[in-house]
């Protein structure tokens, strides 16, 4: 039996969906290792404790609430010190992070402080003889390594969207904890959070993604993708590297090996040829639709449904059809 400490990621005062995924993965890990407890660390400005309920709902037996103005923004140094202090007490066998920009910044710091092994960006795992054995994409997403992680506490991070949040409600139990170091004394200071796509659904939260490639020919033609996403109502718009390199869309929208890894229910590739680097970031999507006028485009090799046609012809019709179907409700 091993207890699990989960770091619950917060952005702009809200618990992210990836935090619920991490709690879900933590719960699985606790069950696989013989039924330990799952404790989630929730850090933020005064009042963040009010968001603890969501973590209990997905399986956190206890939420350790770290409230301080110094955690209003991401504070890696004070967080790493606090987490390492908790983990070094012998209570925990495992620590779970999200393999996001924040989790992949924080987890190595914590592992290094503890002298622990870190298995990153896992898409699945089991426990064998007390050790985590997990799957991790490597070689630019072209191969899958099975990593065996020894020692305790062992640190791992889970790939966004790989573990879908599973409700597993526990009675809400919170405990206020304090920072191991003065959070205002950290050397690295986040002075501003610039939100992209404000008000729009994030790529990792969206059940449907409409992604555009070079086949759209110009930045303004992304309106075709935006319109289809709006017609769905719960879709986000992504892009290929070629598009973000051209500056048609922000870098943060790039899906692929050097960008975001996504795994929505429905992925619609619009004017995307399907370079291996792009496929690496979306091939685990449940259903893939491709619209491209080149019948030999590699995207058709991974697509469930394809239309070999002109995106400027197909997309407006697609948007109208989705609107019609949704109106019928």
């Amino acid at each position, binding site marked *: 039996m091993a207890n699990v400490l989960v770091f619950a990621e917060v952005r702009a005062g809200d618990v992210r969906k990836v935090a619920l995924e991490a709690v879900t993965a933590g719960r699985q890990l606790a069950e696989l290792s013989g039924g330990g407890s799952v404790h989630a660390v929730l850090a933020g400005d005064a009042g963040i404790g009010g968001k603890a309920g969501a973590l209990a709902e997905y399986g956190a037996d206890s939420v350790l609430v770290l409230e301080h103005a110094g955690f209003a*923004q991401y504070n890696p140094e004070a967080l790493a010190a606090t987490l390492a202090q908790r983990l070094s007490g012998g209570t925990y066998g495992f620590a779970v992070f999200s393999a996001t920009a924040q989790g992949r*910044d924080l987890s190595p710091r914590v*592992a*290094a402080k503890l002298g*622990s092994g870190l298995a990153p960006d896992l898409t699945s795992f089991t426990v064998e003889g007390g050790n985590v054995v997990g799957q991790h994409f490597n070689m630019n997403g072209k191969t899958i390594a099975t990593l065996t992680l020894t020692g305790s506490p062992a640190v791992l991070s889970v790939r966004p969207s790989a573990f879908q949040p599973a409700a597993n409600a526990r009675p809400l139990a919170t405990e206020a904890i304090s920072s191991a170091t003065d959070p205002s004394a950290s050397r690295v200071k986040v002075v501003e959070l610039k939100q992209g796509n404000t008000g729009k659904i994030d790529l990792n939260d969206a059940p449907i993604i409409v992604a555009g490639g070079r086949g759209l020919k110009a930045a303004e033609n992304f309106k075709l993708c935006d319109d289809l996403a709006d017609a769905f109502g719960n879709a986000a718009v992504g892009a290929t590297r070629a598009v973000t390199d051209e500056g048609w869309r922000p870098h943060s929208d790039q899906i692929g090996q050097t960008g975001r890894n996504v795994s929505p229910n429905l992925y619609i590739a619009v004017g995307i040829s399907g370079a*291996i680097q792009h496929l690496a970031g979306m091939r685990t999507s449940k259903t893939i639709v491709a619209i491209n006028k080149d019948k030999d485009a590699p995207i058709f090799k991974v697509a469930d449904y394809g*239309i070999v046609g002109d995106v400027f012809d197909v997309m407006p019709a697609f948007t109208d059809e989705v609107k019609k179907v949704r109106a019928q409700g």
Partner: protein
Amino acid sequence: MKIAVCIKRVPVMETKFAIAADGTRVDEAGLKYDVNDFDLWAIEAGLQLKEKNGNAGEVVAICLGPDAAQEQIRKALAMGADRGVLLQAATVPADGLSVARALAAELKEGGYDLVLFGRIAIDSMNQMTGPMVAELLDLPCVTNVCKLEISGGTGRAERQLEGASEVVEFPLPALLTIDDGLNKERLPSLKGIMAAKKKPLDVKPAQLGDIKVSVTKMALPPERAAGRILGDSAAAVPELVRLLQTEAKVL
């Protein structure tokens, strides 16, 4: 300004990988190697900072890897780095912390104002060595840097998140990991390539510690079955939407 750039030799990824007979690594036969993309951007960042400072100081390229990685260090020298260090290891362990320990031991007494890494090595995809080294050396650390200004003893960087970014301030010395979008790396000039042959390159054994993470199996991802082409125009759209509703059940 004294800048260290930690680089990695990685396979060129535009290839079809096969799994080696022992089942725990890719077959190396026929693979070509280059400097990891993100590390090229880290080298470029180091060179630009040195140039902005009137070419004062030095840029040192440090690589942990096999003997053959001298080729990648020479590329960094040809781009303009002043000297190189190879921390010799026949294979690079999957355990990022053991790599970080060996790099930290080399960097510790170096007196560097900045230590730069690429955000991620595209072979292991570990994305952990930089912040681990920072922790071992107690250096301020900013990862995923896509914008950077250094003035005097402080820096200001922007780091990329999913759908957002953070503006971060930090004092020097510091360790940064460089993301896509900060710069475009320069190509080595012929003059640079000639000069690189004469630049110093130290070779010493890597001090790798104990190993807690290992690759116990390597596999190719399952192929997705090719799907159906529904048509060649907007006329296929109603059928597509019908299948998304009734067959794929995603609408």
